[in-house]
């Protein structure tokens, strides 16, 4: 173990980066917090209070590393029900009680709670939550506030609202609808515009900035009132002094009623499931591959929820989109969560009166987009590709959640899954007889390789996956693991999906994770989940080549390269590069490779971030295997952004005798002495008189690319040429 003093030094070294990323996150957290609270029928400021209390308490007491906490989108539906049934004062009491329960879950070590639900049922529940958010806010986005009893009615009336909006005569409403639509467009097109300056501010903050600017334009330049109808503006936000001095009234009057405890249970269930799923997903993004202590995090979230309830906030949960933004901006420990809360306090102190200039439709557009992302057609397509039966589970959960609420919805999802398992196996006793049996055996093989061998018996589904998970969690991810299902009659989709996550976690930390013994099931054809998970490799370009691909084929001929258009999921060689620490390569395709496999040019699809902050990027890259050791570094054009980053602790390596190079290029790396030795005069002159490329070394190979989009054939030729010439000037170490 590293000595403690080192940790403190490291903490302070990383602090500027964390403060910076906390600042970026707070830019998203502010509009989201306001919007989520408004959508739950709570005062707008409640969402920001939640984020502040959560950020402070969880960052100090929590057990995860790069997560951000605050108001969650999953809770909008339940909070809304709680406020409608109990009133605001009663709802605060319910929130406090749910905080106690969440804390209790943490103390009872129930951090694996989310594992007991089939993944398709959870997907269905999240999609239902998405539709609840989308259904209700869509109308407000169009300046057409309506109140209905049933969530399905909101969805059904969407076409009528659009129709109404086309025939508005009140200019206030027209402006409101336009504000909503423009905001929605910003949310949709934000990831598609890959521009550094545009991406300096997160999409939700653009909406805030533009709408406040718009309001000032009318006030200061045109000397008119804001043209958007008054009732579609954010209602007055209390000043910081008012928030701290006037605590909300909390009423425990309804504590004896069924509705109260129903709300408490739903809040607890959704808050803990959303947090646990988010923590799991964020751990996958953590560049340092640390594991979160979920039980400790649950305790902290519970305590934060209690605190938040007392000062007029909502449930504190771990949120995926904000956390992924945190990771992408260099957040590396919990101080970024704290600083996000700190910046929110500053925003409220300084700008609280400005926030009333934001039109509601603009804010709700953010939520509509969030809701759409939770229930997007892509998700349904993905579930369908896993299996038709998963779609049944998904839709049963979705519809029952919409119609009867979350608790019944998730229960129905679990029951449907169990029944489907019975039907598929045509066997009930398999499950009943073996459910309580400790069906997982783990041992370390005694031969020289010392693999961990995990053998699973009988069946392995969501109902008993926790046993397997317990064993797998006890293995550190740099080991070799073999999971054997040959004694197992049935493996379900939830398990396969989770094992897939383990597989990538092990691969990323240099271990191996193999699943064996499913081939027999193949022949059985009794195991559609397992089957489809393993076999499904869609042939995207199998049928015919595009024009670009034909050109690539010609280039391959001209340069004596081997061309392959197929999707290749083997992207392990990219993992050691700094660039891919926070990005997930999905696959590479259109590969051009030389005979020795040292030179490889390819198109790649990778994704960064999660959920609404998720961006899928396709670009072309050149990978050169040097077969020798060089220092690890990353070189790029120096921009104003880098100067901003430099303040936040990303240091640039400069050369005193190469002023031009130092000014124009941004060079980073751990081992400064080696890097300075590696960059010889010849190499620096080469960079100075050639076009800019982003160049990265992982210690033995180089990764070269320019734009974050696919390269044209001409650019590909240039890239190939650049790579070849670069390889010549690279100093030989021996």
């Amino acid at each position, binding site marked *: *173990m590293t000595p403690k003093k080192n940790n403190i030094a490291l903490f302070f070294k990383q602090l500027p980066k964390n403060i910076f990323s906390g600042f970026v996150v707070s830019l998203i957290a502010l509009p989201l917090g306001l919007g989520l609270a408004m959508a739950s029928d709570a005062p707008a400021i409640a969402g920001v209070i939640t984020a502040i209390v959560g950020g402070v308490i969880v960052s100090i007491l929590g057990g995860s590393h790069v997560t951000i906490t605050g108001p969650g989108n999953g809770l909008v539906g339940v909070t809304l029900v709680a406020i409608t049934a109990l009133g605001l004062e009663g709802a605060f009491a319910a929130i406090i009680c749910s905080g106690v329960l969440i804390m209790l879950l943490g103390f009872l*070590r129930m951090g694996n709670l989310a594992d007991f639900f089939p993944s398709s049922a959870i997907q269905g529940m999240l999609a239902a939550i998405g539709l609840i958010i989308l259904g209700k806010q869509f109308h407000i986005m169009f300046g057409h506030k309506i109140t209905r009893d049933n969530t399905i009615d909101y969805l059904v009336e969407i076409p009528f609202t659009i129709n109404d909006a086309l025939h508005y005569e009140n200019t206030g409403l027209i402006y409101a609808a336009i504000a909503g639509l423009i905001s929605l467009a910003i949310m949709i097109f934000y990831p598609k515009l890959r521009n550094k300056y545009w991406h300096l501010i997160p999409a939700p903050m653009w909406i805030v900035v533009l709408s406040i600017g718009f309001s000032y334009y009318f006030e200061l330049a045109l000397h008119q009132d804001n043209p958007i109808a008054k009732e579609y503006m954010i209602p007055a936000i209390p000043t910081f002094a008012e928030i701290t001095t006037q605590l909300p009234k909390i009423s425990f009057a309804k504590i004896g009623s069924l509705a109260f405890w129903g709300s408490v249970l739903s809040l607890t269930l959704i808050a803990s499931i959303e947090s646990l799923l988010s923590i799991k997903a964020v751990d996958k993004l953590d560049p340092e591959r640390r594991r979160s202590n979920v039980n400790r995090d649950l305790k902290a979230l519970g305590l934060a929820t209690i605190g938040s309830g007392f000062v007029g906030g909502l449930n504190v949960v771990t949120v995926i989109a904000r956390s992924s933004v945190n990771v992408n901006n260099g957040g590396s420990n919990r101080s970024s969560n704290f600083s996000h809360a700190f910046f929110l306090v500053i925003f409220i102190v300084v700008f609280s009166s400005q926030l009333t200039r934001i039109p509601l439709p603009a804010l709700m557009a953010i939520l509509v987009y969030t809701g759409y992302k939770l229930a997007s057609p892509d998700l349904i397509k993905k579930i369908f590709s896993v299996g038709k039966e998963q779609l049944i589970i998904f839709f049963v959960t979705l519809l029952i959640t919409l119609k009867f609420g979350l608790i019944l919805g998730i229960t129905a999802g679990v029951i449907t899954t169990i029944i489907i398992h019975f039907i598929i196996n045509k066997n009930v006793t398999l499950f009943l007889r073996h459910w309580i049996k400790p069906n997982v055996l783990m041992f370390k093989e005694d031969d020289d390789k010392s693999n961990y061998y995990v053998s699973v018996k009988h069946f392995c589904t969501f109902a008993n996956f926790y046993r397997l998970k317990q064993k797998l969690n006890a293995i550190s991810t740099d080991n070799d693991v073999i999971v054997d299902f040959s004694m197992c009659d049935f493996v379900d989709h939830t398990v396969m999906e989770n094992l897939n996550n383990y597989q990538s976690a092990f691969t990323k930390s240099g271990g191996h994770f193999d699943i064996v013994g499913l081939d027999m099931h193949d022949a059985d054809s009794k195991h559609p989940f397992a089957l489809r998970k393993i076999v499904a490799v869609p042939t995207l370009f199998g049928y015919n080549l595009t024009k670009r691909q034909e050109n690539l084929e010609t280039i391959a001929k001209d340069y004596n390269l081997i061309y392959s258009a197929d999707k290749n999921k083997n992207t392990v060689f990219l993992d050691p590069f700094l660039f891919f620490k926070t990005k997930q390569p999905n696959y590479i395709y259109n590969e051009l490779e030389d005979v020795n496999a040292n030179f490889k040019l390819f198109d790649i699809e990778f994704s960064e971030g999660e959920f609404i902050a998720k961006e899928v990027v396709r670009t072309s890259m050149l990978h050169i295997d040097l077969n020798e050791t060089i220092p690890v570094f990353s070189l790029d054009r120096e921009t104003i952004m880098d100067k901003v980053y430099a303040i936040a602790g990303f240091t640039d390596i400069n050369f005193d005798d190469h002023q031009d190079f130092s000014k124009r290029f941004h060079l980073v790396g751990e081992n400064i002495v080696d890097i300075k030795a590696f960059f010889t005069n010849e190499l620096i002159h080469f960079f100075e008189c050639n076009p800019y490329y982003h160049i990265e070394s992982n210690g033995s190979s180089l990764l070269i690319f320019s734009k974050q989009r696919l390269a044209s054939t001409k650019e590909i030729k240039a890239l190939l040429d650049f790579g070849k010439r670069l390889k010549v000037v690279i100093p030989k170490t021996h």
Partner: protein
Amino acid sequence: MTNKNFKTIGIGVAFSPNLKANLYEAARLSLFFESKLVLIHVGEKSDEKEQQILEIIKPFIQDNLNYDLVFKTGNPVDVILSVSEEKKVDLLILGALQKENFVQYYLGTIARKITRQANCSILLLIKPSVERIPCKHIVVNGLDNPKTKQAITTAYYMSHKLQSKKITIVEEITKQEVAVSVDDDKSLRKSDIIKARLKMREDSRVHQIISEIPEDYKAQIITKTQSIFGKRGYSIGHYAQFVRADLLVMNAPSKTSFWDRLFPHDIEYILSELPTDVLIIQ
């Protein structure tokens, strides 16, 4: 008890399709161990039955099998137990039933009751066969228990007599022993250290036992120790099934009460799901 060998072997005789195979296995073992075979039939004595049984074991009688045929009426469990005690049987052989899917074996209710109540060692056969199937690999538990020494010694004795080639001594390490729940990287490291320490401790304890076993038993037998992580009593069966062992040797449980059957552990797991032939050492 220092039974280095089994002096008297008992078997319940029921006229089932498995009769011949069961009797062949029992008689063969008696010859191997040079012990007396007590054949117990629950029911009226008749010449016809006696003739039928003797006809089956005739080849063994020619090889000087020392046997005793007992007929007694009454409750099968009580009869077999009382006769075993009377005749000083120290190894009782019971046949298991095979399930419809031909993969799993389980014990009938009578065999189960006998197993729980018997004061002698029990051998549960899952696949008795007329032809001798050589026993190649024996798995034995290495629990930290006073009876373990006996079990391991017997395992060596058995493999010596049956000319089996390999013995694996399994040390089961339970979650309770590790006593650190893995939450994050720090607790994971801690649990890894504890596990390594436990493994070393178990290994040295088992090696101590092995060193006390007579050399001629150990000759030509490959000994392996293996620590496994799982539920005590259940996972060893899982392991035996996984390595396709021919015989699993286990300690008899200290006591079984009503609660043990309700919340199965140790031996009860094995009885519900026989992985291979099981020898329970009393």
